[in-house]
């Protein structure tokens, strides 16, 4: 099937087997290998990308379901010479080790802050209240991204800095 997805601001036309997941379309067809395949079943978060600004697991979506969508991957946030503030914060705080979950963590963190701003509740949000920015909220909202190296404390510190404009 021929589809068009705007990836990192650029319209990309693809002729795809309908079975191709969004993740494999990015990795194998567009050579955007920053989005990682840790489990391929929505159980780790390493493939997290933004689809129309919303974070999703790219492995649990067919590319054809995103015909016409705008997708942002880790490559669209920044580059080694021009890091996004969240990328810089992860670097500064050593919020990764092996680096395999990292692009997903960073995409997730960027979208998480937007969800937070929009007032989306989490299990840490008191009933009837707007969410208050806290480490507990960050931890809960970042729990869809597993880090086996377990850089969890550093990730919280990085996100806090990025959110508060220190990165």
């Amino acid at each position, binding site marked *: 099937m021929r589809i068009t997805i705007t990836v990192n601001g650029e319209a990309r036309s693809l002729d795809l*087997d309908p*079975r*191709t997941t969004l993740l*494999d379309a990015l*990795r*194998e067809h567009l*050579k*955007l*290998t*920053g*989005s*990682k*395949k*840790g*489990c*391929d*079943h929505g*159980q*780790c978060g*390493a493939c997290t990308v933004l689809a129309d600004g919303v974070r999703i697991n790219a492995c649990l979506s067919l590319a054809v379901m995103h015909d016409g969508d705008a997708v942002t*991957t*880790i*490559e669209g*946030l*920044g*580059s*080694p*010479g021009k*890091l996004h503030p969240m*990328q*810089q914060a*992860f*670097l*500064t705080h*050593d919020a*990764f*080790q*092996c*680096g*395999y979950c*990292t*692009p997903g963590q*960073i995409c997730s963190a960027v979208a998480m802050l937007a969800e937070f701003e929009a007032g989306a509740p989490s299990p840490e949000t008191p009933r009837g209240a707007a969410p208050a920015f806290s*480490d507990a909220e*960050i931890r*809960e909202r970042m*729990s*869809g*991204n*597993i*880090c*086996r*190296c*377990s*850089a*969890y*404390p*550093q*990730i*919280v510190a990085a996100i806090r800095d990025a959110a508060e404009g220190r990165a």
Partner: protein
Amino acid sequence: MSSVSDWDAPNPVKDNRAGLIGKGVDRYEGPLKVTGTAPYAYEVQPPSPPAYGVMVGAAIARGRITAVDIAAAEASPGVLLAWTHLNAPAQPPRGTKGHPRSTQGSKPALESDRVAYFGQPVAFVVADTLENAVAASHLVRLSYAAEAHDVAFHERLDAAGQPPGEQDVEIGDFDSGFAASEVRLDETWTTPLQNHCQMEPCASLAWWEGPSRCVAHTSVQMVKPAQHGLAETLGIGRDDVHLLTRYIGGGFGGKGQTYDDLTLAALAARALGRPVKVAFTRQQMMHGTIHRPATVQRVRLGAGRDGRLNAMSMMTWTHCHRDGAFTEHASNFARSLYAAPNRLTGHRLVKLDLPHAGAMRAPGEASGTLSLECAMDELAEQLGLDPVELRIRNEPEVDPENGRPFSQRQLVRCLREGAQLFGWDRRMPTPGQVRDGRWLVGLGMAAAIRGNFLLPAKCSFSVDADGVITVRQGMTDIGTGTYTVLAQIAAETLGVPLGQVKVEIGDSELPPAPGSGGQFGAATAGSAALMAGMNLRRAIADLATGDPGSPLHAGDPGDVTFQDGVVAIENRSETLSDLIRRAAPDGLTVEGEIRPAQDAQKWSQQTYGAHYCEVGVDPVTGEVRVRRMLGVFAAGRIINAKTARSQLTGGMIWGVASALHEGNPVDPRYGSLINQDLAQYVLPVQADIGELDAIMLDEVDDKANPMGIKGVGELGNSGAGAAVANAIYNACGVRLRDYPITPDRLLAGLIAKGM
């Protein structure tokens, strides 16, 4: 004859003139990792479009493949080849006397009709696209003649034997000493089988350059054994395999060897004449790669009323594959930890038809501290002593097993500083006294210990006409920080800014290093780098003083200093790049190497730490939350405060996971593990980890290596789980000796206590 005294001389790392040693500099490869531009094995772009290989695992635990039907798979769209043992290329057996390491791990792929464990790769399909390959893999039909399998570890303890070549170690007379002790403890703990669950599943990409040279990118912790093993399997010369592993998405011991993804990618690439890449699925990782085996640990402690141990025994039962010999040496660390005149330690091994057991982060300590460090907590309670004080009272002056002096031992300082920083004095000795909302709150602690090792390694250093130093080594970085510490050592040694250093590792064509494992990486690779760097200093000094065009001409090479990219003898100087551009425009390259000192064994050499933990226990549901945790560690000179801390906190969280989350039960009917993905296998997530930090004490271990550094990659998860378990007891009064401490188990304990 090499000696640790050879390392006494000053060197640039010890001098640390630029202050780069110990500094928490950002990861060298960090900008690539945070932008998703570091290519892992499956992501390398080959010279022509790759074909996609998918493996199929065995559906039985033991038996024979009796019939194969691959017709449908072969006829499936896009399929390029479909292999089973009937049509896979013949492969020479692996392993030679000269290089026994290459015998480890996987055997030739698709070798025979024998199935030795559930999930063993038994078929392989390659197609033009990943989608076609996966679809075809589901069409492979195999029939089996299953044979009775033996997988029930706890029912087979009576079949356990001594691990090959090992004997129990007894000092004094344990039985008498134990019987004569005023206070005795005799309890048994169990730990479950665990999976590594590296975020990057094992993957390989291979292609051939001509008929006899194979290029293979894979995800492996040790370069040379992987290169040699693949060469043997392919029946080509070692130098005809170019093996690369530049970025590795986690290893933890599970990628200490290669698997059939590498073999099959290389064989299929040869057969098809095009690049082939193969990745394990997450599901396949659980059975298809090694695991940490389950253990049963019996700990006996006998002490006087004063808390001094008179007798100590730790016996571990564990399992490995029927054809293997790996032993989880959970009792070993106990030989060095506490003083006691009468000691008995050893291991028993049961051979089972489970997949292969192997090394997983802190093999031995990770499991073993979960018993002994809780036993010490129980003993302290029996004695009415503070658990920190009990440990201090049993601090040995020399290694209690062999009488050797310690090269460094700051365990007591770790215990004391940790207690103070954590606020240990707030701990109530009686459990169940502190409540915070729905949570009962408790504090626990445990000691940490892990050995330190130095292996032989080589390294090369180059300087080019721009004054850039390039470090080259067949070493790996599995997230441990190798790239970064090598860059720091190079920059400090040659007196150049960090930005003037390049690091190339993960390549079989570079000088060999043993790779990442056993927390020996930084010390081993780093020491070789220091040696190479010293050799390059000498070469540069000779060049400058011998070059009539240099202001340093005719000076004493021993007087040359290296700072800020400038070489100088007192007030005569020039930049490194000016010198090289003029005097050696093609640059200079030298090698260096490190070998263990022959007298290093005269010292007992370990890394140490103390964990302090605060948990909340919901007495209604049995849920546990780690609220606060602090580790204080002593592990020699620290090269990079940032990456070392990350290693330690990561290890601590592994300990939390061992206490609360991880484990993979065996279904004895099928000989398989029940948890086959990351929804079923419980790893901790961000919300499971509260405030958690690690602190490193100042230390230099001059018996370790020329830099006085030691490893930290495994120390963090030694003892951490026991601190959690002890905190749970302090919170609610329930002792559980079967890990992990899940809500259902803790609930049963709470109910039994009438809570």
